[in-house]
């Protein structure tokens, strides 16, 4: 296990390093850039030159990268030029992260709470109308473009009927901020209306964001339950005359859950890193949205840290999944 961990960690470092290089080159290869983003119509050759120099963008690329790497290793990922000018890019990431985590968490709850039970039902009734129905349903979930779904939900439940707020994370209630997890903060500070407001804001985005994970989890659950149902040890369990409950619980589900856990982990990674569309539609103050802004304004520092962080989160979660996998599955644990 230890050796495996070390190997994985090294691999992670490698991946992230290579990525940082690619990323850096990518940013510089982008048409336009910070300077014209800041100056707009007002740009004159002089101001442009001055700004370019001030931002150190006139130096050769490898020098720039070297500087970036050096600063990054000291925890300095540069300053935002446009998303929140003057703010430390790292801080921006850290203030935005909780928003994204909060959203992802709720989306995941939604996906799991529906995906696993339905997946199990579908598998038990494999090839029955119920099954086909559920499968198609889940696939519809995949086929709907996320942002359209988001629009649709917003339109239906926020604009037409005023059931839920249109966008944002919370009404302007002058809430105390501790962790920037609004629901949590509300509970911690006993400002329950803050939590409530945050919850109301979470409903629609979570559903929009949770639909694809739901579909995936549903399908994996179904598939792996199907597999396990056909396994010899299930037959053995039956041959022992165990009650249906025990057979399902101890022998079927427990084995079927292995790949499902994996998938859930994977999805978590994807959610945390890739909620751009949903966050944009619901004007959610999270990483995805920041990415979109940073991109629109060519805010290099912010783009850099956000994408790197996204990748890092992603890889770390993969690692965690593997570890948790090892913990659940004795075959792996004792290898």
């Amino acid at each position, binding site marked *: 296990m230890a050796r495996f961990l070390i190997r994985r960690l090294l691999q992670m470092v490698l991946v992230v390093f290579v990525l940082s290089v690619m990323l850096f080159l990518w940013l510089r290869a982008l048409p336009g850039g910070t300077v014209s983003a800041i100056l707009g119509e007002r740009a004159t050759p002089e101001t442009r030159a001055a700004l370019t120099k001030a931002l150190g963008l006139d130096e050769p690329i490898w020098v720039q990268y070297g500087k970036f790497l050096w600063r990054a290793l000291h925890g300095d990922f540069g300053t935002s030029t446009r998303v929140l000018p003057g703010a430390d890019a790292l801080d921006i990431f850290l203030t935005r992260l909780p928003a994204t985590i909060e959203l992802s968490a709720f989306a995941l709850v939604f996906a799991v709470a529906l995906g696993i039970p339905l997946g199990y039902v579908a598998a038990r009734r494999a090839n029955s109308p119920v099954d086909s129905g559920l499968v198609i349903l889940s696939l519809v979930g995949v086929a709907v473009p996320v942002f359209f779904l988001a629009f649709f939900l917003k339109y239906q439940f926020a604009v037409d009927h005023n059931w839920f707020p249109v966008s944002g994370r919370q009404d302007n209630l002058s809430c105390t901020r501790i962790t920037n997890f609004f629901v949590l903060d509300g509970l911690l500070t006993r400002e329950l209306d803050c939590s409530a407001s945050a919850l109301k804001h979470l409903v629609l985005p979570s559903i929009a964001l949770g639909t694809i994970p739901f579909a995936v989890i549903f399908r994996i659950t179904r598939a792996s339950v199907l597999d396990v149902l056909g396994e010899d040890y299930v037959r053995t369990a039956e*041959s022992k005359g165990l009650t249906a409950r025990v057979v399902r619980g101890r022998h079927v589900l427990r084995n079927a859950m292995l790949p499902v856990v994996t998938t859930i982990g994977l999805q978590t990674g994807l959610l945390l890193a890739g909620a751009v569309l949903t966050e944009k539609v619901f004007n959610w103050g999270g990483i995805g949205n920041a990415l979109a802004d940073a991109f629109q304004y060519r805010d290099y520092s912010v783009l850099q840290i956000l994408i790197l962080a996204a990748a890092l989160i992603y890889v770390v979660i993969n690692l965690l999944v593997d570890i948790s996998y090892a913990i659940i599955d004795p075959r792996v644990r004792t290898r």
Partner: protein
Amino acid sequence: MTATATTPGSSRHGDEPLLSVRDLRVTFTRQGEDPFTAVDGVSFDVRPGQTVGLVGESGCGKSVTSLAIMGLLPARGNRVEGTATFEGTDLLTLAKDKMRDRRGRDIAMIFQDPLSSLNPVVPIGRQVTEVLERHKSMSRKAATPVARELLDRVGIPDPDRRLTDYPHQLSGGMRQRALIAMALACEPRLLIADEPTTALDVTIQAQILGLLKELVTESGTALVMITHDLGVVAGLCDEVNVLYGGRIVERGRRHELFASPRHPYTTGLLASIPRLDGARGAPLTPIPGSVADNLPWEHACAFAPRCSQPVDRCTEQSPELEHDDGGRALRCFNPVEATS
């Protein structure tokens, strides 16, 4: 049909049959494929303490027979006819939950592949105790020592450690022993062993067979041994049923059958196993072809295409299973001459 199917040899085992299978027919009706009859009018008896063998190549329907008796065939996609009377009750028509109560308590089963037959994520001990908890309504705590005892009895060294081990940590032989321990946990009266040794290497095979033999004799459990390997049968069974293409083609007591096999298929099987007492350098003669080339039993002898001595009738009408008073039965138009 049932009338003809009184199994002789009752003289030796006086008491009533523990399990008597009559006219068992299993037809697979998987949607989208033409129905296929895997087991076709199989009848046989098992008496307390007796060991009966079902022999034949893979695909001959022997495993299906056992699963049908245990009620373990998939819920959908098959039709089961006939009766399997166990202590007076027909298992085939028994309610699901009633059947659950009997399984593992009265009738137990051992499967072919010990690894895949054990739940990989549940410790061996737990997998033994759960049977006891279920049928002997013991607490898990109370069941553990019993389980330990069982593991010890089936010859698993250092049982205390093994209780907490997972299947993948055991050797093939030990896994099979563990399975046996689970099967025998509630001293069932009937044990069905489906190819218990095929997945193991030869030396282990011998041990496991020895173990089985020992256990059944001391506990008086009746045993149905399902195998493709006459060698196994030779060491173990009182009575042997040879299946081909879902039907019994020959039946007889072990020594008789081995001494003078009548059905060409049986002779084929015998000829294809190496024997220490065989003449040195005597060639092994395998049976040509495969079950794929079967003819339909309805209007021919399914074995005809592979038969060493077919006659015209074999391909024109279906042979019946004919019993002689010596407790033997045979389904063949042109049997091998008795060598005696």
